[in-house]
């Protein structure tokens, strides 16, 4: 027996409204839901061995979320360069503090969604109807892109709003009648390794419509965003074509990393850090550490990765404290 989280936000909201820890025994798995914080690190390490038999889900702490929202609003309202700089530093400090202390990334994601998102209910429903994963990924990608932007000194308020929507709607072009299991798999494969998505589709003998849906989704996403007029700087929609699921030049549209600008790399990293398969149990620290391990081989996102991974330098200090 397995539990499907149809709408993670609702579940989190429920648990907070009820004010209790949601814990349910399953035939094969245990679902642990902690309001606003992760289980302590020692326990987590112990439980890591039992990862296959335990599902750990985080939920939103209202207080922390409100703090995030206040800081985010303050930042977006800043006008002077010094104000923007100060507010972004404040925001990042608080974010890093919370993530290190085990607060769910959903707190940040939810606050970004509530403060920045201009997505309409209809757009959200459409994504949800086609695939719940699409909505979940959009929700997390937007939030993570905002964080990476702030870390990489892209602090301009209008840009923050734009990058959120670019990340949020980067895969909206997938919404079509031809979206299928194979397309989903292809997206997953492409995310894991550039250039493998299309070959997977061919290998699985997917239909021409499915292949077309996969191939044309960046262009469709661009067209959607261009039409929706959600961005302050409309020219940024072009980034969707350049960054899309590639970093080595072998991917979907085949632009090499040299051609990419920082904001496009932000979008790539925002996409890479959100695995399409395990969205229910997204853990920023886990994802970053797995990314860090790959650094030894070669990391193509040169411009943005360095500052993002400098985040780990903050963790030992906390532990030693």
């Amino acid at each position, binding site marked *: *027996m397995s539990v499907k989280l149809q709408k993670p936000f609702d579940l989190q909201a429920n648990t907070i*409204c009820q004010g209790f820890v949601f814990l349910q025994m399953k035939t094969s798995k245990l679902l642990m839901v902690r309001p606003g914080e992760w289980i302590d690190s020692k326990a987590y390490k112990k439980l890591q061995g039992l990862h296959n038999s335990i599902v750990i889900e985080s939920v939103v702490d209202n207080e922390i979320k409100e703090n995030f929202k206040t800081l985010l609003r303050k930042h977006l309202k800043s006008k002077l360069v010094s104000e923007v700089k100060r507010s972004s530093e404040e925001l990042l400090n608080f974010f890093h503090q919370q993530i290190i202390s085990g607060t769910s990334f959903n707190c940040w994601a939810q606050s970004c969604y509530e403060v920045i998102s201009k997505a309409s209910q209809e757009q959200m429903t459409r994504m949800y109807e086609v695939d719940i994963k699409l909505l979940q990924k959009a929700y997390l990608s937007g939030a993570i892109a905002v964080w990476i932007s702030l870390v990489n000194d892209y602090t301009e308020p209008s840009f923050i709003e734009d990058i959120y929507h670019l990340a949020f709607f980067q895969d909206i072009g997938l919404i079509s009648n031809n979206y299928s299991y194979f397309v989903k798999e292809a997206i997953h494969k492409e995310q894991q390794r550039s250039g493998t998505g299309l070959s997977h589709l061919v290998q699985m003998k997917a239909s021409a419509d499915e292949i077309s849906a996969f191939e044309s989704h960046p262009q469709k996403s661009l067209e959607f965003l261009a039409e929706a007029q959600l961005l302050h*700087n409309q020219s*940024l929609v*072009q980034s969707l074509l350049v960054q899309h699921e590639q970093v080595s030049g072998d991917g979907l549209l085949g632009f*090499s990393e*040299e051609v990419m600008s920082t904001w496009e790399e932000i979008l790539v990293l925002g996409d890479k850090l959100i695995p399409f398969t395990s969205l229910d149990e997204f853990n920023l620290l886990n994802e970053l550490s797995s990314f860090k391990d790959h650094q030894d081989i070669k990391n193509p996102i*040169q411009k943005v990765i360095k500052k993002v991974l400098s985040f780990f330098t903050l963790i030992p200090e906390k532990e030693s404290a």
Partner: protein
Amino acid sequence: MKKDIIILNLCEELSPQIMDYFNRREIQLIDPKIDEKNYKWTHILTQNLQDFSFIRESYKTIENNIQIISLTPVTNKQNFICANGKIVLNEFWIKSKIKNFILDKFFQEYLSQDVSLSEVRFGTMGKFNLHKFHIIGDHFDQLVSASYEESVSAVNVRSFLDHTLMYLAALKNRQKMDFPLEVVYGTSEDAFGVQFYFSSQGLMIEDVSSAFGMEGNRHSEESLLSTALNRCDFLDFSLIESAKKMVITAAWVKGGGVNDASLLLTTLPHKAKLVGYLQESNIEPAVNNGADYLEHIQLPEIHNEEIRRVSGENFSEIIATRISDVLELERIQRIAGTEESEEELVQILKESAQEENDKIVFSGENEFEDVKQIISSSLSQTSENIQKDFINSDELKKIIIKSIGEEKPEVFKVGSFQEKISNEIQRAIGDFCKEKQLKSGDFSREHIQEFQAFFLSKGLKENSIILSSVAKDLVNDLRQRLKTGLSIEFQENSIETVFEKANQHDFDQKRIRSVFKNNLKEALEATFGFEEKGLIRRDEEDVIAKVLGSTPVEREAIKELVQDETAVQPHEPLFLDHTSEKEKALMIQLEAMKKDNQSLLEKLQATILEVRVLKDAKQTVAEIKGKAEELAAGTIEQDLFEASIALKQELKKNLEEGSIPSADKMKITELLEREVQLMTNFNDEMKKSKKQQIELSQKESLYISELEKMKRQLKARDFMLTKSKESMQKVFQRKDSEIDNLKAKLNKSNTLLAQDENNISSIENKHLRMQNLNLTKQLEVYKVKLSSLSENLKSREKPDNSRDEIRKMQMEKNQILSQLNQLQKESHRWEMKLKSEAERSQMLQTEMKRLQEELSLQVEANKTNMSASQSNLEKSEPENPVQEIQLSHIKELEAKVIQLESKLAESQKNQKSNNTDEKKIIHLETSLKKLTQDIAEARNASNELKKESNKLRQEKTALQNQIERMKKDAQKNKKSA
């Protein structure tokens, strides 16, 4: 290699570094003598070439996308870019480590994908991004400080940044550039680099070349990139068209030392491996150790190599005086000239180039360019026209000259072209033969083509003199001024007679020199503007010497005079600060008087001239009269007339007598002839005299009228003179009175100053009192304002019905909100319960399946009890439709819950957006009612579900009982079996 690179090599010699690179990358270098048909050039390699329009036309570089590479600096970048010029690489960069990176980047489209990333790229020191053009100050300051720390000219970096940013702003205004703009800066072993990265759409090469105009242009926009380029040592424009991206990189060599900037314009493929010069590294950002680059900016020292400072105000006068003293009178006469023809001017300038007899003299840059074009086109025609396989040098020379003569005969009008071009071509052919080790008769078509390139690369320029337009302007201006000046001074239109007079009298020589001095001063000032600039360039010195000196010795002497620093030291008045106001006033007066005197003198000169003209007129009238009298006399004809009358009378007598001898007959015929002649002469003379009489009368009347006019004018002049004298006297009187007034004022002020300080204090006291009064008034006003404010506050503190109402409304709103929250919670609870019910039903289903499986197993095991087991299975079948109905029910309920949620969300949104609106509140209340109804329905549905679940439980227990029974039966059967 992806595509072959075939380069047409127009260079004489290539550096080993470049050759090494070409060999390593297997790039083919083709000699120009090899036929183009065999190879399709991808690039053309040039050296020491400035005009690329010929290459553009000859090789159709734009049409065939043949890219031009120049290994030497190019002056006119616009011309270079317009001819598809892509890279200008000077010696420094060719020898540097980064050469391979630059060239790999340039040839990237042609090279295979495995081009290695160079290790010599710049390490990043800092980066920032811009979203607006006006928020740049702090970022740019940090960048420039970093460059200063890296021993690069901070002024150049700042200037580059400003110009580039202005260019980008221009692109943005044309919607060809988009934000964000990424700026990265870093350093390598020997250079500092800055890189701009931005999105760019629809950028054309014209958008780049248009900003590469020559510097010094009044329209700064046209030379934004030229200025930016000249402020750095290397500039790279890379466009990635497919990705709509643009990268601009600039580099500065540490410690300077590079004279000319290099340029690279590339269009990169979208899978480009090499784009940026800066890569992420561990270089720490520049530590600002307190040294501010602005504190180290110094004004440049003027080296006397090229430009030196002169006394702006006096320089022209001093050198004009000194030159006019030294210059020979003949030279002055030559400059003043007789005709205003262009040829004459050119002749004067040519005289200054006499020592270089072999060179062709061109009257200007334009003329030179025209001739060059014609020669090159005739050379290409020559190669087409020759019929033989080989041709000798003389023949070639003749064909070239002939084709020039046929095509463009006007070229031969150019100064010394006709005389010298033959030698010039001869010499060029000789050099070419020497270099290529050819015999004079071995010229093939290919050789002629090669010779064309050789001739162009060598350039006519080296062996020709191009007269500067400045020199022409100076001569022309000086001539004009001299002609008018001398004619006024000597009252003589003919310059020759002026100089004839001067040769006779020393005094007149002095007068000429004085006029020449004044005019030279004015002409120098008008041409060079020394007074305004206060600077003189070396080439300007040369122009003055060339224009004025006719021999090398004379020119050297003039140059020395111009360069003599001690002679041109400006006069600076001592004790500038101590000159009194009175002195200044007197000086101004003196200057005014000088001007007045000068104008009076001019007027006097004009009247003298008029008087002279009148005198001349009188003389001519007298001469005419004399002539008329002479004519009237007509003595010769009168004598003839009298003689013929005497003869006639004699003949009459003879006729009356009747005796006409043969001699008389002869006389008669002679007489008759004479008479006829006389009559005709008489008639002619009569006509002439009549004409003269008429002319005389007309002339007399004309002269009389003109004399009267002149008399009137003279009277007017006299009157004006007397008036001007009177006015001058009045001016003097007025000035005197002004001076007196000033004196009086000074005295008064002195006396005022001498007065007691108490006066000042009393004024101050008054002022303070006034201020006090103003302040007290202001205080009163503020007091009134404060009281009114306090009253307002008090009135606000009083109970207000409207406020109460608002509070009530708010309370109601809060209550509604709390109700909404409760409803939300309830709906969540129901949802959870529904889910749990669904889960339970699922569990039941699975249990059912399990039991069925067990049953089937048992059935298999007990084949004998088939009938019993079948009956049992039949009983279990009707459960599936029930489950289906249940599931459909659950789904319906879920849909209802989703509807409720959406309604709730809508109501929440409405609540947030319009809190104050009463209508919305009413709407909310109605929606609340609906919600409560929905929830009641949901409750009923859940009750039904509960009931159904109870039923299911019951059924389940019944089934379990049945199963137990069946088990027991089975056991019994086993036992019995």
